[in-house]
């Protein structure tokens, strides 16, 4: 029972991390119409960034403070160099170019950090955990990560619902051409959205680094699971990404407890079930 509780907590916390990665992916797809296979690489770069920055700063949260702006700028550069050439092209070309980016980022990662796994320390003040029973504790750091993700999710929803840039983002989800026709330069909107997506994926990678070891290819499972979340939630929907990510996180964690033999298929079964009931996803436009 305690184990199941811990798995449930882990599932929610994993889901919240996935949300950060998936929210960027869903915006880039929903607003810019770009399938970005390299999205997981930004999670990976976030994790390695956490590794290097923490060696200097000594604290993962200081690394976060430095790493997120760096990731945003990196996103602007990648958009300017590569992604903006994809807007008028078909999905096959988008997949090819962003797949090439994965290969490039993976090579760069090997050159810079090598192929051994590394670990990133949990800050001293978050060592230890809440006692759940005689034998089990739940780490403070995981709780802190979950709280941080929730705060970020609420912040994003506020920005999207209440601010001018949020209004433009929502409008862009439904009709990019009209956004442009009403005087908003969609090149700037796209650059901002892409860079924000990169920053969000990197944020997830940074705060996740102390939870598991940092290793080559760490972003790839995140990419796949993020796509599942985008499909479940409905393309372009932040609310959908949030709900989808929590669902996936919990299903994945409970699957490991109750159906260990099929644990890796549980999330896909969930995706299939959602798509049968709602082909456009939970918050998708009517499909």
């Amino acid at each position, binding site marked *: 029972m305690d184990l199941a509780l811990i798995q449930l907590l882990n599932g929610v916390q994993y889901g919240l991390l996935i949300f950060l990665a998936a929210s960027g992916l869903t915006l880039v797809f929903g607003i810019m119409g770009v399938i970005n296979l390299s999205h997981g690489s930004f999670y990976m770069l976030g994790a390695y960034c956490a590794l290097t920055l923490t060696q200097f700063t000594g604290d993962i949260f200081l690394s976060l403070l430095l790493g997120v702006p760096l990731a945003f700028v990196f996103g602007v550069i990648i958009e300017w160099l590569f992604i903006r050439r994809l807007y008028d092209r078909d999905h096959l070309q988008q997949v090819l170019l962003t797949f090439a980016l994965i290969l490039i980022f993976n090579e760069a990662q090997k050159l810079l950090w090598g192929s051994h796994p590394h670990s990133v320390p949990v800050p001293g003040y978050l060592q230890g955990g809440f006692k759940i029973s005689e034998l089990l504790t739940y780490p403070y750091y995981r709780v802190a990560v979950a709280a941080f993700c929730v705060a970020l999710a609420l912040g994003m929803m506020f920005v999207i619902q209440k601010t001018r840039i949020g*209004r*433009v983002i*929502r*409008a862009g*989800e*439904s*009709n990019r*051409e*009209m956004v*442009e*026709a*009403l*005087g*908003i*330069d*969609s*090149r700037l909107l796209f650059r901002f959205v892409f860079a924000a997506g990169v920053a969000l994926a990197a944020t997830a990678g940074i705060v996740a680094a102390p939870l598991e070891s940092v290793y080559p290819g760490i972003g790839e499972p995140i990419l796949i699971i993020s796509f599942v979340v985008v499909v479940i939630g409905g393309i372009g929907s932040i609310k959908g990404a949030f709900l989808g990510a929590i669902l996936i996180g919990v299903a994945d964690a409970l699957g490991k407890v109750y159906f260990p033999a099929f644990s890796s298929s549980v999330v896909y079964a969930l995706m299939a079930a959602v798509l049968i009931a709602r082909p456009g996803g939970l918050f998708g436009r009517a499909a």
Partner: protein
Amino acid sequence: MNAPAILAENINTHYGRSHILRGVSFRVAPGETVSLLGRNGMGKTTLLRTLAGLVRPSSGSVRLNGNDVTGERASARSRAGLAIVPEGRGIFPNLTVAENLTFASRANRKGERPWPLDRVYTLFPRLAERRHHWGNELSGGEQQMLSIGRALMTSPSIILLDEATEGLAPKLRDEIWSTVKQITQSGIAAIIVDKNLNDLLALADRNTIMAKGEIVFDGPSAALRADEALIHRHLGV
């Protein structure tokens, strides 16, 4: 001498390999209302979209109030005073009526806002009633009003209306036309594409007809009304 609100010269537009606009020149004087008529598929929408910068012509030039905007994006043309009310209306379904209206609210180049929110609500009282509704909760007529109101809030000097009354009941159609009349009388130039010849003849200072990507008629309403053969050839059913 005032520069034309819009002056397009020798426009050629292609979709892939099909040559749609064939050397179209088009001029609208400041404050003038011009109708653009023609059968289905003759290139009316393509011309409006080319003027608005939503489609790139392969050759030709476009000037807005004397400024060359040929190389400019749609967003720059919008900020320079051109507004389009597109076929299909282009409402943002996931924004409220009020959010749709204020989405691109801005002053014109002289710093004036001739159509602030309350004036748009006076013009379309139904939008005021429904200001907190989502864009996709509106009827077709209300969406049309919203699209026109949103265009006005960009303080345009010229407005392009593409099939503004399509699918509307006659009573609503008359309502839309009477507001369009108020808009053009306020000094905004207009190009109006529509299928209802008689409505346009009453509204327009000048009429144009497009056939197979070329302008085949350009003249006052009286001249067009008198030329039954022309009407039959290019507009008749």
